[in-house]
């Protein structure tokens, strides 16, 4: 039985349709636009919200069909045969419909035959025999090689990879801390004390020694912000010095000596026997202090200024400052296997997109004395990595893993494709939830390097 109906033919390929695909319809309103509710969906590469752009409906006089423009914005303009329509256009056979910002065009044709039977909106996908044959041949070829590829691609981090990484992981110890006064080119030691704080550091393939900032600046280890009722007697000595340094620098700005806290650290290889590889000072490390919070507590008689990695509301980039790195000359002599690869922005994006979450963490949990193997623990990322507009992870990484004191500064490893990378540096543990930890994304290094390049004259 013949009936009158129309077809809309896609004139171009796009992400959702192929050239030659068709929609058949007669009596149903047909929505064209970017939202999920549309019968014909078009791409939305713009920054604007998805919208319904047009509706094709039967005319009330039953004399054909009309195209109704539904959005008044210029960005949602609808054109028929190149001419923008304001509100409604009665469609003619052969009309070409296009949309602002879209390559796709739809050709409207009226038919009267027995091909359209259902009464609903019918999708017809083009199928040319040669194209199908070629497609099948390609699929077959790819399928065989794909199986081989898949096996390698999806294999988790192997023991071999971990062993390779272990040779680039070291213990870092803070042996002493000094409070220095620096004026012009003269440096005086105001106070010093021995320390015994250990953490983990690792060497990268780019010859960077990387660790957590709080491993080399242990005066930041006080996790609670000093309150108004805090008295100096309750604070460790080196924390008081840190307070004094910041207070001095804020109160006596300009022309006076600057006070600085410095730690002296040893980087140790722990097997077969603990062996000093090299010594470093905390002031040699590159650290981003732009997130530091200086807040004032106390009264006129007892002023404290506290510099810390405290989270500032909103908690957008909490703790991202807890990372430090240092270019090491002759790094090859310290890691014969070549070091650990840092994940770049691009790799991090792929990891986030693929929802890759299996991790391995390496570190030196605290032992009393003696030789110590690098320990490994496995876990999973607990949250999807979310990105800022410029492609950096927006937050610290959240994960589990059987971590204990000493793992701070250790690398968080992940396998992406055929390669494995460090994506994070162990930073802090959750205060209330067991087995919940946070790491600073290593892309902070890439970000700091970019910032330094921009600052160079």
């Amino acid at each position: 039985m013949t009936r009158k109906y129309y077809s809309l033919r896609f004139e171009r390929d796009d992400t959702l349709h192929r050239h030659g695909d068709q929609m058949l319809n007669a009596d149903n309103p047909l929505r064209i636009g970017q939202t999920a509710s549309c019968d014909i969906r078009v791409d939305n590469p713009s920054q604007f919200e998805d919208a319904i752009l047009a509706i094709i409906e039967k005319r009330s006089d039953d004399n054909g069909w009309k195209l109704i423009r539904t959005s008044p914005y210029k960005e949602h303009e609808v054109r028929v045969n190149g001419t923008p329509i304001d509100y409604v256009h009665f469609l003619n056979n052969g009309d070409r419909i296009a949309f602002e910002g879209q390559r796709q065009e739809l050709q409207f044709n009226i038919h009267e035959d027995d091909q359209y039977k259902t009464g609903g909106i019918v999708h017809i996908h083009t199928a040319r025999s040669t194209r199908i044959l070629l497609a099948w041949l390609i699929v077959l070829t790819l399928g065989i090689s794909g199986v081989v590829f898949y096996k390698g691609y999806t294999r988790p981090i192997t023991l071999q990879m971990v062993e390779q990484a272990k040779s680039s992981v070291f213990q870092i110890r803070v042996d002493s801390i000094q409070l220095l006064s620096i004026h012009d080119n003269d440096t005086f030691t105001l106070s010093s004390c021995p320390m015994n704080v250990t953490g983990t550091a690792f060497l990268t393939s780019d010859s960077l020694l990387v660790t957590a900032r709080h491993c080399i600046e242990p005066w930041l280890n006080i996790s609670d912000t000093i309150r108004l009722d805090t008295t100096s007697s309750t604070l460790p000595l080196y924390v008081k010095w840190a307070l004094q340094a910041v207070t001095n620098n804020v109160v006596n700005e300009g022309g006076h000596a600057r006070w600085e806290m410095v730690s002296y650290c040893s980087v140790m290889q722990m097997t077969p026997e603990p062996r000093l590889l090299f010594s470093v000072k905390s002031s040699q490390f590159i650290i981003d202090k732009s997130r530091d919070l200086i807040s004032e507590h106390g009264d006129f008689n007892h002023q404290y200024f506290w510099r810390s990695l405290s989270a500032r509301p909103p908690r957008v980039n909490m703790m991202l400052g807890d990372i430090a790195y240092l270019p090491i000359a002759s790094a090859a002599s310290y890691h014969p296997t070549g070091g650990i690869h840092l994940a770049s922005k691009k790799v991090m994006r792929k990891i986030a997109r693929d929802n890759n979450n299996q991790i391995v963490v390496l570190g030196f949990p605290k032992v009393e004395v003696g030789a110590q193997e690098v320990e490994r623990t496995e876990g999973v990322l607990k949250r999807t990595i979310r990105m800022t507009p410029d492609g950096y992870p927006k937050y610290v990484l959240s994960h589990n893993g059987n971590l204990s004191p000493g793992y701070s500064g250790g690398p968080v490893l992940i396998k992406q494709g055929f390669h494995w990378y460090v994506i994070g540096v162990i930073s802090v543990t959750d205060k209330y939830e067991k087995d919940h930890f946070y790491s600073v994304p290593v892309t902070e290094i890439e970000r700091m390097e970019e910032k330094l390049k921009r600052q160079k004259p």
Partner: protein
Amino acid sequence: MNGKPTSADLAGYANEYTAWKLLKEVSGRIIESKQLVVNPFLIEMSDDGRFVLKPSEAQEAGFDAPEVKDGGRFEASAVWSLGATIFYIVMGRQVMNGKGGIGQSETSKLPYMRSEWPALSELVQQCLQFIPDRRPALKNVYDVAAKQYNRCVNDIKRGPKLKSVSSMSNSTANNQQDMAFWPEAMQNIH
């Protein structure tokens, strides 16, 4: 050959901008021409995008005010018809269950169109008052429509709404979303 579309062809799909534009242009035309018969089938869309009220006495009962059935037709009746027309192009159906003024009594509930367009919905409600003296004057309808139309034009110039901020934002204004995402407290691993 196709005839020209009328505002009736918009039935159910008119947006706020279109509704105010029609109200402004048609009420202005009525003031000039004194034509009192108004319905969506008489309002054409010109090539330059204006709404033009065709001179005609062709009536549509569904868009006639209640007093018309008793032989009265005056400016307030045109206001009622305008309200019914706007209701039709926005909602896609005729007021008073399609019966128009014939189906309305003094106690009939006045329809309210859309809560997201309060100014338009309230004006249409007032236009559809059963008692003619309670309806706004045509000049008032024009003034309100002109003002609201200008507002819509300015809104349109600013462009459509931007995609909602999600994982791609670095904005510190996104506090609520961040707080919900990151509620835990943290402490150092000494």
